[in-house]
Each structure stands twice: as C-alpha cells, then as structure tokens.
C-alpha cells in the first residue's frame, strides 16, 4: 500500500453493557484501509462488522483503542461530512419526493437550491432514476429505493462510503445487477471514494472488494484478510471465472475456521 491509510483502527475494543453483563462486540481490532480501497466486511451475525462500520461513522464510540479517519477523530470526520452512509433499509424520508431525498444532505449542508437540484437530478440519472425525481418513495420498488439511497449518499461527494448490508433485502437477481451498478458508479467517480461494505454474502464480498475482512463472532475479531486479485472492471463473466470460485472457497474456509475454533474452544 503506497498511499497513506484513510482509516486506521488501532487495538480497538467495544464493550456493550447489557442486562446479562458486559458483552464484547469487538476485541483488539487493528486494521488500516487505504484511500480508494473497496473493503468488504464479512462474518456471521454478532461478529461486530456493523459495529466496526458504525465506529468509523462516529455513530458509536470505541470503549478503548483509537480510530482515525483521514488522520482525524471520527467525530471530526463526521462534522467535516467525510462519509456517506447507506443502510440495509433505504431509509428514504417518505414525505419527500425522491429528488428531495437526494437533496437532503445538501440541504443540511446549506448548499444553494439550484445547485442542489441540479446535483440531485444528475445523480438520479446516473442511478437510472432520472424519470422518478418527483415520485414519492412508496411508488418505487425496493431496488429503486435503494438506488435512490445510494444517490443520496453520493450527492455531496464524500470521500468515504459506508454501506451496511445495502443489498441484503433485495432478491438475488436484483442484487447481482445492483452490485455491477455500484462498481461502475464507484470506478467512474473522481476521486474514487473508499468503500466499507458490510455483507453476509460471500460471493457479494468477493465480487465487489479489493480485500475481504473476515470476522469471527463473540468477541468480534478480525480473523483473516483475503486479498481479492480479480481484475477490474468486474463483469458478469467474473462470477463464472475459476479464480472467483477459488476466492469464494477461500473466504468460505476462513469463515468455517471461525466456527471450528469456537466449537473447539
């Protein structure tokens, strides 16, 4: 990695206080992510992958250790609007039209109306929703809503994109199409944002990422990092290549190792 890391975790622990005593969500996580990298976080539920992402976004704070985002604290990075976020649910505001949903972050950041409108429309065109700017969210299908959510996250050109199982609620066919679309959005953006993509689908992680971070549950730890050397641009045929299968198998084995370890323990 030649470029300096944009995100750095240094011995981060996250402990939740619950009714049944403290629960360690993340244990001694150290990780550094390069600028422009596409990182997939994968692991069974309860492995803390979403927590890891939320620490970057300052939606939660670590119990110990440090997280640096662009050399700053996550809180400062959030105040500087350094990242856009996409959740599993589209979380569109139902009382706003699709266009005004995409405008929302720009509105909050105090951009002038004309610029907002123009920017929102060009993004909607980019995600294939050019004709739906004046529709209300309920008039859109699930996949279209998620496209609008991605357009909203990209609207202010953040340098980091946090995605928490964004395609988790979609059917497999729509999902694969969205993966391809996301990659083309990402590679066409200048500068290319750094993406942290949480998923529990192995093929999705392998297809999208530069590196797949495999996590093990209770306590959440980084188990292994699998380097994905598939050539870009990745296309439909990528999923049928032998290398793809090998890497999928590699990630699957890493995940199974986390199971075995726990059964053995």
């Amino acid at each position: 990695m030649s470029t300096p890391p944009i995100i750095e975790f240094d011995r981060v622990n996250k402990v939740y206080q619950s009714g049944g005593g403290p629960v360690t969500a993340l244990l001694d996580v150290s990780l550094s992510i390069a600028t422009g990298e596409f990182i997939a976080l994968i692991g069974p539920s309860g492995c803390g992958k979403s927590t890891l992402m939320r620490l970057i976004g300052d939606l939660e704070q670590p119990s110990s250790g440090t997280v640096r985002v662009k050399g700053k604290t996550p809180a400062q990075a959030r105040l500087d609007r350094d990242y856009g976020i996409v959740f599993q649910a589209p979380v569109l505001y139902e009382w706003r039209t699709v266009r005004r949903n995409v405008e929302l972050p720009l509105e909050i950041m105090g951009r002038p109306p004309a610029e907002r409108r123009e920017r929102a429309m060009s993004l909607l065109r980019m995600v294939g929703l050019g004709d739906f700017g004046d529709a209300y969210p309920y008039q859109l299908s699930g996949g279209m809503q998620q496209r609008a959510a991605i357009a909203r996250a990209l609207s202010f050109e953040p340098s980091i994109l946090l995605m928490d199982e964004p395609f988790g609620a979609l059917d497999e066919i729509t999902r694969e199409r969205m993966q391809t679309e996301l990659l083309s959005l990402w590679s066409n953006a200048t500068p290319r944002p750094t993406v942290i993509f949480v998923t529990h689908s192995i093929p999705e992680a392998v297809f999208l990422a530069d590196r797949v971070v495999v996590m093990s549950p209770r306590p959440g730890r980084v188990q292994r990092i699998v380097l994905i050397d598939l050539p870009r641009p990745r296309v439909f045929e990528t999923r049928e290549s032998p290398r793809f299968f090998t890497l999928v198998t590699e990630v699957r084995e890493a995940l199974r190792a986390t199971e075995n370890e726990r059964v053995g323990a």
Partner: protein
Amino acid sequence: MTYSAQGVPGGAPGTLVRRVLPVLGVVATLLLLWEGARLLFGFSEQRLPSLGSIVETMFTRTRGGTGPLLIVQMLANGWATFRVALGGFVIGGLLGFGLAVLFMRLPVLERGLMPYVIGSQTVPILAIAPMVVVGLGRMGAPAWLAKMVVAAYLTFFPVTIGMLRGLRSASPQSLDLMRSYAATPFQYFWKLRFPVSLPYLFTALKIAASAAVIGAIVAELPSGAREGIGVMILNAAQYYNSRPQALYLAILVAGLVGIGFYGLVVLAEHLIVKWRT
C-alpha cells in the same frame, strides 16, 4: 409495487361512485325506516315528526313570526359553537404541541407524566365542564372563554400524546442518517422529527376535533348560557310539546357542526400529508 402516478388514492370516478352509493343507500334506508315506523306503529307527530314537517319547520320564523328563519337561527348558533370549539382547538392544539416537544426534550418529565396523562383519560373531564363554566362566570369572564377553556382542555390531551408518539417515531436509522450529516438540533426537528410526526398529529387532531365540539356543547348546558347549539337543544327540548321538530333540527345542526369540524381536519390532512397511500 412499481411506480405508478395513477396509484394516487381517490383517483378514478368509478370507485368514488362505488364508495358513495352504499353510504347513500344506508342513509336512504334509515330515512325510509323513519317514515315506515310512523306508518307502521302509528307514531304521532309529537313522538316522531314526519321528515316533511321537519323540513317545513326549518323555514318558519322564530319569535312568533318576527324573528329570522328557524334554520338560520339554528345555523347561527351552530356557528357560534363552531367558533368557540375552533378557538379552543387551536389553543389546546398549540399547548399539546408545545408539551409534546417539551416532553421529547426532557424524557425524565415524560417518563413521569406520560402514564399519568394516559390515566387521566379515564377521568370524566367533561363532567368538570359545568364547574369551569360556573366558576369562570363568577369571576366575570365572558361566557365564550369558559367554553373555549373546556374545548382546549379536551384537545390538548390527545394532541400531546399523539404528537409525542409521532416525534418519537423516527426510526433509529433515520436518526443515524441525520447524525451522519452532522445536522443541527434544529434540522433534526424540522427535517425529520416534525414531518415524521404529522400523520400521528392528524390522527390526534381528528379525535380532538370531535372532543372540542362535544366540550363546547357540554359547556353550553349550565343555566345562564345564551348562545350556541347546546342552548338551542335545551330550549327545543323544553318546548318540545309545542314544536317537536325544532329539537330534531337542533340535533341535526349539532351533528353538522361536528362533522364539519372533522371534515376540515381531514381536508387539511389530505392537503398536507400527501406521501401516504
């Protein structure tokens, strides 16, 4: 679940007819039953006046032929009640809104007060109305003020509860989204919490609308009140033997006031909450 601009509710005229026709059918059946009962059981005009005679009475003059038409007098009194109820509704609504925002900012206050506010629904607040009216009257306050106080009191409870529930109904993720934008508290409120709460607010306002009208009418019952549809009902009941039709007319107007008020709130809801199917 794909996009369709035609999917807006109340669109096609065919469905409108299909929706209105059965309602008209039931109303017609009720009116037929009314006249049928007169024929079948031989109810006197005194017991159950004919629909024709009620309509006829609408256009008789009051005060022995010198006053305005009865229907005009009734509607004027209905309007008086409506005004008072509206005044109380607005005051109570604003109060409820303010309290809800206060409770939202200070959860401690809410945790203590909310169950009590809900519990207070079991208290017959309407029953206190005569005392409010008599008490405030004794203090020299104008009659409309007491009525307005009762209407406001009945409005503010449902609005507080509904609005607070609405303000709290923003999903954790939509709040996270605002946080990710580093939004100011002001923006949290106006761009998220307030619009989220609007459907809840209108549900509460619909309940409050009828409560405010009922409150205003009940506040007109204690002796001494001179104006309002409640007074008309009492008077008509008192002189029922000489002119039974007036009572039916007064009750009809009272119903109209209630439905009119409710209709206005529904209309406002349709104009403002457009995103709901």
